[in-house]
């Protein structure tokens, strides 16, 4: 039985604990031997995103120290996984255990589909759901085909959600436009960031979504911030929160 280390990104840990808990329960209910190493904090993305390479180094090293020993590392966040997979080499290349860590760190949906080979989802979710395809999961991890690429369409997240009874995944006019979160971009370029976010919300509203879901809570936090300020009748939920109710096999 492989040992799985669960990484809960800092902002989920602090602001959206229910997402962390749902990811934890989801994996446990699949019968996976999952651990939550208490020492973990953050993957270092805010610093890396701001160009502060030297400030990122201790966090990359910490991550390897904590998670290097697991067979798999799973995180309910596309962008943190992309950090490990696509950017950590700058600090960790050549370190013992890094190649293993990089090859075995997965975003939650990706892990369910590609590693745990979940093929059947048994559950109800009778809601109209807008699926927000966060950019890093989409274009850095290729959880789905991005609309720019002319390859055969696929979408691992939709594959999971789509099996729930009663769910209606609404069709957006721009299926994978960025919501404008972008890490520090959200505050550096506040005006453009918020306009991008409002435009995404409008697309989901037009399509009739009641709930916006996704695999990156950071984007959902930005969208929810706009929703709550403008008192819109929309809700955000992480994919893990939706799947947690169902039986996966």
């Amino acid at each position, binding site marked *: 039985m492989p040992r799985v280390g669960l990484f*809960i990104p800092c*902002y989920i*840990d*602090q*602001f*959206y*604990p*229910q*997402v*962390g*808990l749902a990811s*934890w329960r989801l994996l446990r209910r699949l019968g996976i031997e999952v651990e939550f190493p*208490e020492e973990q*904090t*953050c993957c270092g993305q*805010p*610093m*890396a*995103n*701001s*160009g*502060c*390479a030297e*400030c*990122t180094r*201790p*966090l990359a090293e*910490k991550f390897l120290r904590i998670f290097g020993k697991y067979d798999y590392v799973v995180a309910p966040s596309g962008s943190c996984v992309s950090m490990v997979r696509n950017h950590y080499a700058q600090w960790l290349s050549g370190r013992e255990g890094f190649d293993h860590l990089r090859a075995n760190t997965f975003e939650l949906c990706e892990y369910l589909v590609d590693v745990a080979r979940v093929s059947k989802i048994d559950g109800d979710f009778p809601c109209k759901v807008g699926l927000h395809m966060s*950019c890093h999961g989409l*274009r*850095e991890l290729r959880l789905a085909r*991005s*609309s*720019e*690429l*002319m390859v055969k369409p696929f979408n691992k997240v939709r594959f999971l959600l789509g099996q729930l009874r009663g769910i209606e995944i609404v069709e957006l006019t*721009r299926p994978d*436009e*960025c919501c*404008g979160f*972008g*890490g*520090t*971009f*959200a*505050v*550096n*370029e*506040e*005006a*453009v960031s*918020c*306009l*991008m976010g409002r*435009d995404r919300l409008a697309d989901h509203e037009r399509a009739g979504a009641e709930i916006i879901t996704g695999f990156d809570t950071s984007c959902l936090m*930005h969208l*929810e*911030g*706009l929703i*709550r300020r403008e008192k819109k009748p929309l809700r955000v939920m992480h994919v893990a929160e939706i799947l947690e109710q169902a039986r996966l096999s």
Partner: protein
Amino acid sequence: MIGHAEKAAPFAANEKRAHWHDQALWFVRLKRDRQAESIPEWEELRQTASAIKAHTLSRIADYLEEFERNATNNRIQVHWACDAAEHNAIVHKILADRGITRLVKSKSMLTEECHLNPYLEARGIEVTDTDLGERIVQLRHEPPSHIVLPAIHLKKEDIGELFHKELGTQAGASDPKYLTEAARGHLRQKFMAAQAGLTGVNFAVAETGGFVVCTNEGNADMGTSLPRVHIACMGFEKLVPRSKDLAVFLRLLARSATGQPVTSYTTHFHGPVRGGELHIVIVDNGRSTILGQETFRRSLSCIRCGACMNTCPVFRRSGGYSYGYTIPGPIGSLLAPLRDPKNFASLPFASSLCGSCSDVCPVKIDLHHELYAFRQDMVRGKRVPLAKRLAMAGMSYVLAQTWAYRLAGGLMRGIVPRMPRALVYGPWNPWGRQRELPPMPRHSARGLIQRDLTQKGAK
């Protein structure tokens, strides 16, 4: 120099106009999608184009010499310019030596980059841009706001007003057909009177010593067949080795740029018109410095299709002028600071790093990863404000110590909900200007997971 964010904010604040701009460009992106979809081997084409460019750049000196030899054999006069000043001086000398005072130009981003127009105008030469969009911005004394669609920031009413003032069209007229006709008549006179034509170059072919110019209006063809003297200006990266490489690039260019299968006019030049002269000016202007930088070398593969601008969610909502450089958008956010890191330090940050640009780029430049890498250069060069660098260092320190992180998180969640709203949402909180802060729950995820574990244990 004011940064991108400051210039973008007023553009985004005019939401109606920003949405109009966004839609206009998104429409072009969708046209591109439809064209790209129609080619089963699209991704293979991109891969091939990318490989051809990488190869050419790796042996650029050899190919340039080959091009010069073959071009000279074609009776094309080849000039070399190390920078913008030399480029402008060469063009001016060609014109001045022949007593030429009236020049028509088709679209050339290189001459924009070199600021050729004001240089020539200051020396008594009348320069007319003949691409309709370029002519519009020229009449407004503005630079283009987009490399393929220079006047995309303007509505037809703006153009009607401009033409009324400059070309004497009816006041209040904004019918595109009427306005285009008026521009045509106006440009025809300029073509007839021109003594020389200047064009850009889309592709130059080393093996033949010829080059290709793509337009949709045929203005390059008018401008080079009526006057006796044709000057073509190109950055050295426009080179491809063989004629057959054009079969790759021409299929990608128009589809990526405007969503057309091919530009209306694709003209191959292999020598001067009868009794005329053909000059080509090959320009470096900082390109060889970029070529020497491994991380950013690939940005020289750019074929200036503009697709990264059309797809960029930031560009669409901030407009070309917010970048402050001839080439805006994702590729401009690399090229501008590569040339002048001090004045364009904010551009690598003017991106959410969504990666749409890299996926759309027909030559597969890894635009968003290069932007990400460039941010580190900016921090190393201390071109990011000290306050920001210190904030990051502080954050890094806290996050690196589990106890400090837990303490800080707990305090924040405990205190913020008890603070008066006015204090939380003051002007010092850019997140909260238009957005609510995230919820501040009592328990952290680790707390909930611990509880779940002990409960399970008890059962």
